[in-house]
């Protein structure tokens, strides 16, 4: 790495630097390439000046900067005490050894249109299966492509505008739709919510903003593809989706990163708000670099995702397939405020080699007749450790609340771990709570049965794991389900056979 930036933070234009590929690991992770492009990188370290610099880079209004500074000052009070209750283990993170802002391309030539985007960046997204050029775009999917701290391009914006749907980088929304951002930013995940959410609130760079107006069924899938390229950088994206009364939207996110030797920090915040009769379906394929076979490198994925089912009959559905990251710490949750609102959480978390995942959900029932469904599937291989941690809370106001929880763990090999930590708090006697859990292994008999039909051990594992995840994959849009299935296969290479 040849960072030439000085360690002295300043709001003056930061030094340009070029990242190199020398710090890459030799792994089978096929998304592990990095771009050797000119980048606009903030000096390492975090202080008030860096927060101001990020805000200045985005040419933000004063209210946004104030909000960031409020968060930053609160973060200082937390004294670098990251939450310690999760079943994950890693050396302390040096928060002063991270670049908090990195943008592909030189500082003085921000692309305004797709034609101005560095062809190398476009090529990189194409290589990742996300072509952005008009001719080759994914049909029926509007994509916001985010590299490091900035959105590179957003497709189909014009067609969405025709039906009143706003889909743009959040940095753009701050300028063009300040009232919406002011009203909803931090309304579901307050800046003081938790250590990483506070950090994100101070330094968040880009992410997506979507607004679906009253009665509109969003005509295409909205997708954000997150890519970390810059070495030693953190990615702190912020996503905000608002579904007005009677609207519907299906949103997808995918993510990858180069195979760097050092760990990279990813601390995102996602907030969803659904009004009366609105539905938001949020799907994630998380494929951040997981580190190599010996546990070197990989992304620390510390994410706060929360939705507010605010209106009557509103519905939030989280579906996640988590195969990447060295460490995953995330609990996509639903605040079931509206009467008759529904919250769903469907999850597959796979750990291999030395990966660790502590993931689950929180379903907080406040409205009457609220319903939640949790289906969590954990797959552990190699020396991986997978923990399901979930909270079902029924408040006194939530008459006739219902929850069904199912947690299944599948173990491959004899050195991995699976843990289930369900919390149930019920403060209303009319609640109906069901919890089912199972742990199983891929048995020799199952493998032999497949082999006897001509199926190789590796394919047999793939088939059995797909069967195990069937209920979750059904929740994903079709192309995503295919990709998820492939991801599981690739992620398990070396662990089976």
């Amino acid at each position, binding site marked *: 790495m040849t960072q030439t930036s000085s360690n002295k933070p300043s709001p003056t234009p930061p030094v340009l630097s070029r990242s190199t590929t020398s710090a890459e690991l030799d792994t089978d992770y096929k998304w592990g390439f990095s771009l050797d492009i000119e980048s606009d990188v903030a000096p390492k370290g975090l202080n008030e000046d860096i927060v101001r610099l990020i805000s200045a880079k985005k040419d933000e209004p004063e209210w946004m900067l104030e909000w960031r500074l409020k968060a930053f000052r609160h973060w200082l009070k937390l004294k670098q005490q990251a939450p310690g209750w999760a079943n994950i283990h890693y050396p302390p993170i040096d928060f002063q050894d991270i670049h908090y802002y990195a943008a592909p391309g030189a500082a003085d030539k921000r692309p305004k249109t797709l034609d101005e985007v560095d062809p190398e960046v476009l090529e990189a997204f194409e290589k990742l299966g996300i072509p952005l050029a008009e001719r080759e775009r994914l049909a029926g999917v509007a994509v916001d492509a985010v590299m490091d701290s900035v959105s590179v391009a957003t497709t189909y914006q014009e067609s969405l505008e025709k039906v009143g749907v706003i889909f743009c980088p959040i940095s753009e929304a701050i300028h063009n739709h300040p009232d919406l951002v002011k009203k909803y930013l931090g309304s579901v995940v307050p800046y003081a919510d938790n250590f990483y959410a506070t950090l994100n609130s101070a330094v968040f760079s880009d992410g997506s903003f979507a607004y679906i107006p009253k009665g509109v069924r969003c005509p295409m899938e909205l997708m954000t593809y997150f890519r970390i390229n810059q070495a030693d950088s953190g990615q702190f994206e912020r996503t905000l989706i608002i579904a007005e009364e009677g609207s519907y939207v299906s949103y997808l996110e995918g993510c990858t990163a180069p195979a760097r030797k050092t760990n990279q920090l990813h601390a995102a915040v996602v907030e969803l708000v659904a009004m009366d009769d609105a539905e938001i379906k949020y799907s994630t394929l998380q494929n951040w670099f997981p580190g190599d076979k010996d546990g070197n490198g990989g992304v620390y994925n510390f994410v706060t995702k929360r939705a507010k089912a605010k209106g009557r009959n509103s519905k939030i559905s989280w579906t996640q397939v988590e195969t990447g990251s060295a460490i995953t710490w995330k609990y996509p949750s639903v605040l079931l405020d509206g009467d008759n609102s529904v919250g769903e959480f469907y999850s597959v978390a796979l750990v291999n080699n030395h990966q660790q995942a502590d993931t689950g959900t929180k379903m907080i029932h406040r409205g009457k007749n609220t319903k939640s469904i949790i289906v969590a599937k954990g797959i552990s291989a190699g020396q991986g450790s997978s923990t399901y941690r979930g909270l079902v809370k029924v408040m006194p106001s939530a008459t006739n609340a219902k929850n069904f929880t199912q947690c299944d763990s599948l173990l491959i090999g004899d050195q991995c771990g699976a843990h289930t930590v369900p919390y149930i708090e019920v403060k209303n006697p009319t609640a109906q709570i069901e919890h089912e859990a199972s742990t199983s292994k891929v*048995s*020799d*008999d*199952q493998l*032999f*049965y*497949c*082999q*006897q*039909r*001509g*199926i*190789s*051990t590796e*394919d047999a594992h793939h*088939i*059995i794991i*797909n*069967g*195990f*995840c*069937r*209920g979750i994959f059904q929740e994903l849009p079709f192309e995503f389900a295919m990709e998820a299935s492939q991801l599981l296969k690739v992620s398990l290479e070396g662990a089976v056979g």
Partner: protein
Amino acid sequence: MPSNSAPSGAPLLEIRNLHVSAGDLEILRGVNLTVNVGEVHAIMGPNGSGKSTLANVLAGRPDYTIDQGEVVYLGRNLLEMEPEVRAREGIFLAFQYPVELPGVRIWQFLKAAMDALRVHRGEEEMSAREFDQLLKQKVEMVQIDQDLVRRAVNEGFSGGEKKRNEILQMAMLEPKLALLDETDSGLDIDALRIVSEGINQLRSPDNAILLVTHYQRILDYVTPDFVHVLIDGRIVQSAGPELAHQLEAQGYDWLKETKDQPDLVDTGA
């Protein structure tokens, strides 16, 4: 012409002096058997005689140790082949206790199996449409419920459904050598008849069937060319289908007594 096909009447499987153990327990103690293309052989014997072991060893189940002997399949050393290669080369085991594969639909499972077989033979994978048509045809042939193929493999199946599912798979994969491991056990008379009809339809001059059974009753429906009696890990008697009726009438004891002697000789060797 594929190198691994053999004309009717040619030797398909030759088992010579096969000794097999599981842990410290010696199960097969010198089995000799030749199966030619186009033949149906029934292996009968009392519980614990090694019938199922023989079928499983031929299919390549890893729980056993081959102590001695050889098995030649289509002129090749079968014991050196991985289980999945044996399957792709045309060996099919209808399991006595088929396992459940939760969430894996039968059609998905069969498609994966068909693809593996075809790729092994250097053929293209079957198109989804072609596969659907074939599956529909075979489902009718073995008289199983059309909805069964959309269910997960053996998950929540009755004993009869599990066995019929095995026969369906056999019909799809069209093996050269089918090993039926107590396919008749646990079936009521109607299910037995349906399963037997399936087997009879699959029986052809181009393949061979090794039918392992404890009871003679399935042989009322599927008439074998040869009946062998396996006792204490060795074939003690081989004859035509009439032997099955004799066993039905007299049991196995008369055979056990006559064959005790050579055992003593062997253990001293």
